[in-house]
């Protein structure tokens, strides 16, 4: 009994700081977003006159920095979904070809995929900018989509390959004997069985892109093409930033990922860890 109490106490000792570490900034954002401009920096734990007016300002685009709010959040969504979908398509085909069809050079591709993570994203920023410029894609949402696909795809291929390796090999053999062509095997057997991993990878790429700042800032500069993450950054351009409105926007910006993660949490845990270790 004492021992159980002790181990539980140890657990709390870790859990409480972690919880505070995570929640305090979020509470801080929330606090700012419901405060008026005057009371934002009052230092109180709860504002005297909590208000939702900041959110109204955001939704109605009634601030200088928010004239393109709806446009920018749409950009964020568009880019994230496109990057997620393209990453998923590439990674699924690659994983199927390498894991199930055993194409030559599959191992090399896998190692190369892993190798890309030795190069930090910041290191690639300038070449990426140059490449996009060469193709005339700067200031097009596609530039960010393609950049994010190159970043997300190697990990996605790696995870999906590991997950496909776990599907019983006999299923492929049974399907081949049943008369399936590789395409039928892919469509009728492989895809349905991979659904949990596919959902996890799609969500991963989508959230990675949604949260991306560096490449978005670099590749897109027109107010109509930037995602909201970059739009939020613009708030800090002035000496007297409207913190309460920035935080309200940030809170709104943070909700979709939380919702997506919550909706697919079952797949996220199973899907991402299933490929996490090389069995």
């Amino acid at each position, binding site marked *: 009994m004492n021992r159980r109490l002790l181990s539980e106490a140890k657990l709390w000792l870790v859990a409480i700081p972690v919880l505070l570490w995570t929640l305090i900034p979020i509470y801080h954002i929330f606090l700012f977003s419901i405060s008026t401009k005057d009371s934002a920096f009052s230092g109180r734990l709860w504002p005297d006159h909590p208000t939702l007016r900041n959110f109204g300002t955001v939704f109605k685009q009634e601030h200088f920095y928010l004239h393109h709010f709806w446009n920018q959040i749409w950009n964020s969504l568009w880019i994230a979904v496109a990057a997620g979908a393209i990453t998923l398509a590439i990674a699924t085909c690659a994983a199927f070809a390498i894991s199930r069809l055993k194409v030559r050079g599959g191992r090399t591709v896998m190692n190369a995929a892993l190798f890309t993570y030795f190069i930090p994203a910041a290191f690639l920023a300038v070449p990426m900018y140059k490449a996009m410029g060469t193709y005339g894609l700067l200031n097009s949402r596609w530039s960010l989509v393609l950049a994010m696909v190159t970043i997300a795809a190697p990990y996605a291929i790696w995870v999906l390959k590991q997950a496909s390796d776990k599907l*019983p090999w*006999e*299923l492929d*053999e*049974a*399907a*081949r*004997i*049943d*008369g*399936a*062509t590789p395409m*039928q095997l892919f469509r*009728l*057997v492989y895809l*349905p*069985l991979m659904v949990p991993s596919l959902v996890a990878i799609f969500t991963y790429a989508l959230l990675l892109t949604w949260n991306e700042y560096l490449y978005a800032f670099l590749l897109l500069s027109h107010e109509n093409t930037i995602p909201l993450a970059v739009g939020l950054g613009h708030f800090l351009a002035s000496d007297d930033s409207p913190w309460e409105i920035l935080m309200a926007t940030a809170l709104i910006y943070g909700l979709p990922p939380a919702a997506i993660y919550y909706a697919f949490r079952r797949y996220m845990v199973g899907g991402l860890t299933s490929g996490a270790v090389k069995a």
Partner: protein
Amino acid sequence: MATVVFDSIFKSFGSTKVLHGISLDIADGEFMVLVGPSGCGKSTLLRMLAGLEDITGGEIAIDGRVVNDLDSKDRDIAMVFQSYALYPHLTVADNMGFSLRLRNDSKARIEDRVAHAARILNLQSYLHRYPRELSGGQRQRVAMGRAIVRDPKVFLFDEPLSNLDAKLRVAMRAEIKALHQRLKTTTVYVTHDQVEAMTMADRIAVMNDGRIEQLGRPLELYDQPANLFVAQFIGSPAMNVFDGVYKNNSIEALGARWPVPPGTSAREGQSVKYGIRPVHFDFGSGIDSEVVVVEPMGAETELVVKIGGQSLTIATHGRSSAAPGDRISLAPNAKHAHLFDATSGLRL
């Protein structure tokens, strides 16, 4: 319905040779069992017939047509796997009809064929379930249903009963045999279990180390094993084998004289292996032995006895009053004894 011909089949994985020139003719409608210890190449041979492994050398023909370069799907075969290999996301009916769906058969025809197979296998009430909702035996039946639905030229079974418990295995054994008697489709069945081989086969090919040691009807293998390996592999409990020397028309072994089987080709002074099955002993005047273990099994009793320091197994019908430590006298039945060359292991 079809014949299957293996013509000097070789197989290597890299530098490892696993099959060394297997030739085997399987008749139309025959139930052929490939049996042998694990690693003997029996599954590889079956998978080559299925088109799941490349053929390193030799030719395989189904119904007179060489299939070496033919895809699995064009060989008109159906295979039942040890792990069942059912598609987990499809219902029993969809699993069974999968091959027909790939062939673009009409929906009505697929339903008709699936219903027909389900009737044969008693699966009608499970058609809408998923594999995870079935017991091991039911899954095995679905796997067989998937094969039946296609009405293939050849059925292939790769250790289909290994994952079932002992009781179910015996029941499924009878079911597969009954199925074969009903459909009369040429069948190649791989197992490591010699009891399965004995009870189900029309003919058995005993394999060891990438070669066929002997090919024959089950009782031929039991009565006339061609060599020591077959002698010890076929039959349960296993044959007693010990060293001896042929002298004066009998075998001197374990400090006793053992009767020689009629018609042997052994020469005077030749070193031999003497083999005799546990059931081929009579009690009475003969060789003196000491009882070590008594294993009553109801219908029969197995005794482990010591003769000249070596343990031998004796099986008797009915009960035995012997107890450990007793001395009993055994008379080996010469007609059922076997002599093998001590070095080559071949039957003499």
